[in-house]
């Protein structure tokens, strides 16, 4: 079938304001959305710019706004986006960060927030000879959160981040959860004050856009709520 692919284009170098370009692209129902973009880049217009790498939803390069919602282009199929021939699919950069070019956003701030939450295991006791033990139950508490690929689909879908760019956002706080709730970690005292602040947990209004957007189907809100409860109880 043939699809109309609408792409939000912007090249600051050109001095032109952002605009929508439309391309006619042949597609099969089982094609990924990424393959539409690749077709444009390779055969129609080499200047179209976007990030991509693994092409199967594990590297987190190609999160973008597709048909008005944040998704990973390589992990969503044409058949889930359109009904049939001649339909339109729209691609825009993730909302809420500066655009570098076309679908490429500047992720500096996104990763600053990640770094802010001390995203590493904190445990100053000397490690044992072998692995630290962790029961399957303890592991299960963090397993969902360890699936995160840091694609940014969640943080850039959160109205709270759009409103206040300083809000740490779901991705960073999920990392905080992942380490704080790791049975091997002893860093709550350092990490909790960072998320328990005006930029942190309390700006999550349980909007669930993040969960809806997450390509790894992580129940982010659930883990953020757990972190909120921990932050509250830690006050006493």
């Amino acid at each position, binding site marked *: 079938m043939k699809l109309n692919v609408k792409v939000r284009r912007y*090249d*600051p*170098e*050109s001095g032109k304001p952002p605009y929508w370009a439309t391309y006619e692209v042949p597609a099969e129902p*089982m094609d*990924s959305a990424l393959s539409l973009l690749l077709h444009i*880049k*390779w*055969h129609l*217009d*080499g*200047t179209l*710019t976007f*990030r*991509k*790498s*693994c*092409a*199967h*939803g*594990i*590297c*987190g*390069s190609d999160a973008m706004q597709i048909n008005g919602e944040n998704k990973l282009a390589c*992990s969503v*199929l044409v058949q889930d986006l359109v009904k049939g021939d001649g339909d339109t699919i729209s691609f825009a950069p993730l909302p809420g960060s500066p655009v*570098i*070019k076309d679908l*490429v956003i500047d*992720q500096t701030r996104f*990763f600053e927030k990640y*770094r802010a939450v*001390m*995203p*590493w*295991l904190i445990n100053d006791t000397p*490690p044992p*000879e*072998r*692995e*630290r*033990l*962790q*029961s*399957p139950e*303890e*592991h299960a508490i*963090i*397993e969902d959160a*360890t*699936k*995160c*690929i*840091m694609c940014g689909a969640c943080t850039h879908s959160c109205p709270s981040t759009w409103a206040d760019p300083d809000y740490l956002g779901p991705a960073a706080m999920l990392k905080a959860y*992942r*380490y704080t709730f*790791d049975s*091997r*970690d002893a860093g709550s005292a350092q990490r909790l004050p960072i998320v328990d602040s005006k930029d942190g947990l309390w700006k999550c209004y349980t909007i669930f856009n993040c969960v809806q957007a997450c390509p790894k189907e992580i129940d982010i809100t659930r883990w953020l709520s757990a972190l909120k409860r921990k932050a509250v109880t830690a006050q006493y």
Partner: protein
Amino acid sequence: MTFSHDIVIVGAGGAGLMAALYAREGGADVAVVSKLHPLRSHTGAAQGGIGAALGNEEEDHWLWHAFDTVKGSDYIGDQDAIEIMCQDAPRTIVELEHYGVPFSRNKQGKISQRRFGGHTRNFGEAPVRRACHAADRTGHTILHTLYDQCVKNHVRFYDEFQVLDLLMTPDGETCGVVAYEILTGEIHTFHAKIVCFATGGYGRAFKTTSNAHAGTGDGMAIVLRKGLPLEDMEFVQFHPTGLYRLGILITEGARGEGGILRNNEGERFMERYAPTVKDLAPRDLVSQCIYKEIREGRGINGKEYVHLDMTHVGEDVLLHKLPEITVFSRTYMGIDPVKQPIPVAPTCHYAMGGIPTDHDGRVERAQRGSTVPGLYAVGECACVSVHGANRLGTNSLVDLVVFGRRAGIRMAQEIQDRRNEPKPLLPDDPQKPTRDLLDAILSRTEGEPVVAVRTDLQQTMMDNVSVFRNEETLTQALADLKALRERARRVVVRDKGKRFNTELMDAVEIGFMVDYAEAIAAGAKYRTESRGAHSREDYPQRDDEHWLKHTLFYSDGQGGYEFGDKKVIITRFQPKERKY
């Protein structure tokens, strides 16, 4: 701009980050330059596991692991290096655990282990549980944890800087690299005492591959262009179970958890070829068997694929131990592996060959001991050689972390030793060749687009240099590559801007691809025997008399090349016929 650091590591996958972390912990000033953001590296795609004789599930011994690796390599892996790797693996993985990698756990709370192809108990008796894993996202959790640790330790990252050239003094000492900053289109010089390549694999030279779009083998080509050799490039691993047509990987862990390969008659054909380990035979063998089945007309519906049957292992195992591949099958094939078999075919997966190094990651220009001062390589782009003619599943991640760690420690030591020396002087105008290269591409207005050349390259490699090869196909491939080299030099890009010009980088990469593709095809033509993943139809036997050796490929970058040999090191295990 010129950036100055003790150590510059090119590539931020598992190997690069491991080296960076240990070098940093050793006190050096480390910069990591990567064309992708580190978390986008392809190590994240590694699914099934990382092998180590931890013995958490059942008795295991590093020597058994070493034996399996040697046998898997078809006796061409260097046994001293293999011993180091297998001995170092358990402790390295325990260190990873201490760094926070969220491994799956067994009932006792230890790291959970599972079966994998070619890994056996007591020198080949029966499959053993050796693959430590985090469900089927092992590489992903390792990559993320290593990045977290590097951030903690203030490793300096230069994200989205693509390295295009290696800088050496006239005496052959390494002094830095030249990189293109994708965001701004600026060319930068990195001045360093040590450069370490960790740029990963080259799977994108083939049409069907499990590798990322970024897997264009840049590091190998850059080193080759400096007159340094590539080792054993003819050994290209085809993973038996890629999703049909897409090449997306279905981990061997699927068979480790009980999955079975079946042909169009529903027959479990691996029983015929490898009676002891059956579906858990090593990859070279399984891929060849699948192709044989297909050639003999037993592909499903007469097409070029077979079935991976997981229907009997149960929904529970699929959802908890193999969640990712369950999702892949559902998303990309519209198939529910709980109820239906998965269509699979071999997919280009891994580069056994690469930049020759010693046990500490130091690059060698010819025979053992001929190290290039200040140059290191680790990970898939390097060839230690622990994988020989065929890598066992889970051994790549082991290779990354063990030799990444060793290289990191060694580099920090070297910086210590050389702390009073100044950095070797940069050549005059170090950026000139790179600038000329880019200017030439940008100023061209007539020519083919990159995609045309790349598609033809991938097609010829797939048709002529994949699982089965012979004189004729390889001659064809080399002829094609000759033409492709010319075409690659004349590609034209439409994007002339400075800002995030990925098309320009595509144009540079196609040049790299031709260079190392030639190494692969030429090496395959040169080696007139069948060994491991290198299967010559016209020379179906292994020939230890002539070919129990490594090949070193040198190129002049213009289509002229020559070969050198390197001895294989044998310590404990004498070459034997390889039967499973």
